[in-house]
């Protein structure tokens, strides 16, 4: 089922938290709304669910305008960050609750609950109460409760953020597998770019209530449209340096870097991902820098170097070692550089 947001806005009093958001989610798609806290991503999700009123614009699900429809008439299921399991009901009753409200027969509810519980490996826990379960199990109960209704759309509000790191990785994989198997359109809100990159068919990056970019994980990483997107996606974040651009030559301190493009701007930003940089001897390379810190991560060493315009992170060989404050050079392939306008943050191509 498709979900279409048409120019929706949301204001709380004088504060506008969503600015004319346009979004079209395709049938069976896994769309991630990514953003920092306060970016309006959760508000957007809650508006789709019907838990938040719409200030302006319209929302339609499966071609039906649901802008002013009550949540229960939208045929959406939601998984909350806190899971929102009913503490006074057993796991089985929790999962079966939507069916009970739909007034299904007792045996039918039981069958379906068992069915879903099987899919999320909770069959043995149906008689327990949520407080007797671990975090991961609770999370699966919440998922099962959403799945049992076979809704048109799954809405998930940071469902993994209350789990510890190890479990989160595991649940991520399960979630992805399940979504592909069920083929239900899913809108997923997170602030974690790793979740966004691994789960999404497409990522919508929001900032201050505005859509920054809507693209597949690969293109949002490889081809960011704004400086904000470039810096938000990627770990460590993209290195940036302020400088000026004159006929395709970027001036960073005393260094002059050929960009291979014929662009000019007095105020420009150069961006470079850590994995695209190499540490070379002092004097060689394109940017002069001073070694600030070495961190052995495991499969590589993360080098932090001080340049004329701030710190750069570089992924170096695992064996790399050099004394603090040693002069080094940073080299890279000019193809891999990104240029942004200094004032608007827009990509310069």
């Amino acid at each position, binding site marked *: 089922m498709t979900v279409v947001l048409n120019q929706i806005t949301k204001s709380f009093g004088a504060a506008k938290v969503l600015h004319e958001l346009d979004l079209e989610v395709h049938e069976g798609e896994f769309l991630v709304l990514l953003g920092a806290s306060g970016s309006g991503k959760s508000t957007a999700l809650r508006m789709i669910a019907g838990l938040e009123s719409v200030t302006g614009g319209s929302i339609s699900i499966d071609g039906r305008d649901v802008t002013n429809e*009550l949540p229960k*008439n939208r*045929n959406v299921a939601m998984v909350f960050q806190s899971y929102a399991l009913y503490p006074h009901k057993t796991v089985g009753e929790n999962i079966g609750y*939507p*069916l009970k*409200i*739909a007034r*299904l027969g007792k045996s*039918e509810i039981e069958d379906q609950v068992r069915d879903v519980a099987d899919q999320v490996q909770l069959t043995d826990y149906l008689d327990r109460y949520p407080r007797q379960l671990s975090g991961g199990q609770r999370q699966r109960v919440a998922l099962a409760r959403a799945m049992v209704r076979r*809704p048109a759309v799954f809405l998930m509000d940071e469902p993994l953020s209350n789990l510890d790191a190890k479990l989160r990785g595991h649940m991520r994989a399960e979630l992805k597998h399940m979504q592909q198997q069920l083929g239900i359109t899913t809108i997923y809100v997170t602030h974690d770019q790793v979740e966004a990159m691994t789960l999404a068919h497409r990522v919508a990056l929001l900032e201050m209530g505005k859509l920054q970019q809507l693209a597949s994980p690969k293109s949002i990483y490889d081809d960011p449209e704004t400086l904000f997107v470039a810096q938000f996606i990627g770990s460590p974040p993209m290195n940036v340096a302020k400088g000026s651009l004159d006929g395709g030559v970027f001036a960073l301190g005393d260094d002059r870097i050929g960009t291979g493009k014929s662009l000019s701007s007095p105020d420009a930003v150069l961006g470079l991902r850590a994995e695209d940089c190499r540490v070379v001897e002092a004097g060689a390379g394109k940017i002069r820098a001073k070694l600030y810190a070495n961190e052995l991560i495991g499969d590589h060493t993360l080098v932090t170097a001080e340049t004329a315009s701030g710190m750069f992170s570089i992924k170096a060989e695992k064996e790399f070692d050099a004394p603090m404050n040693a002069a080094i050079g940073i080299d890279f392939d000019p193809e891999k550089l990104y240029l942004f306008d200094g004032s608007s943050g827009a990509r310069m191509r």
Partner: protein
Amino acid sequence: MSDNATSARAGISSPEASLTLRVRFSEWIDRHSRQLFITPAVVMILIFSIFPLVASLIIAFSRIRLRGGGYSVRFVGFDNFSKQIFGSEQFHFLGTFAPISALGWVFGLGVLGLVLFWLFKYATAKFTVLGFLGRVITASMAVGLAFMFAATLLSGKPFGTLGTTLFYVFVGCGIQFLIGLGLAFLCSQPIRGRNFFRVVFFIPMMITPIGVGYAFRMMADTTKGPFSPLWKWVGWGDFTWATDPWAARIFIVVADSWQWIPFIFIVLLAALENVPRDFVEAAQVDGASSREIFFDITWPQIVPVAATVMLIRVIEAFKIVDLPNIMTSGGPGIATESMSLHSLFAWRSLDLGQSSAVAYLLLFVTVVTCVSFFNLIVVGRMRANG
């Protein structure tokens, strides 16, 4: 049909599916749940609180005569009120006025001075019209009451039901707060049998006020009561407390305290136990004495609860009626008569206008006191704590 089945299974109530009467009814209920939830309470309050309030306001401004089966109403303006404040009932409501004695002048002018200083400070510091008006009302009531006491009590004459009510409220609640807090503090210490004390101390609250009244009448009986040997021993065997105004008032306060300390105790105890242990332990490690710990750590944490519980207690104390009614019937004379009881007696003598007027005066004093307490102390505290 199969379409219906799937949508039902999926829990959708799409417009097509919601055609049965029951579904339509529950839809209607749901759409109107906003009103449905709050209307019963609003209607009940309108009928049983607001309507009587307005009606007794009308009664307070009229003279009602019962005639045969019905009654006649005549509008008399402020007559009922002025009778209480300036007229023939003045001795009953405010007290018997005497020329103000020197002590009375000192007290009255002292209060006036303090209040003016307080208003002046407010007006020069952070002036808002509404805040100033509110404070002027509070201040004028305080000055008025001060001169009432100056002209009666401090000039050697008895005060009326207003003074008696204020005595019950301020002296009674003050004592109850101190003892309640003390008991709660003792019970929050790591001692054996805390639960026993907690249950026992709570019991008086559950006893009907009228029972408390009669029980304390037995307690106070100097000839046949349980303490009569003690009275005889100290030589007060023939002293009847019910004929001495102050003894009678104090006994009513004792009974009232016996009944109400449990309420203050139980709430403050819960508040004390809610103070995080770490704070107290950190202070202990820092070498603070238990007195310092209480005043620097514990007290600031329980102030909001204490203010709220006292606000509730004060509201209830203004309404005191059962105890003086049972224990002394307001006597000797009118010495223990509270305003509620005053109004009740007026009603009994079928003077509905006077009864309502006194009730309204009580309401006025209660509202001004409670609003002042809330705005000046509770809200002020909240602001101070951020």
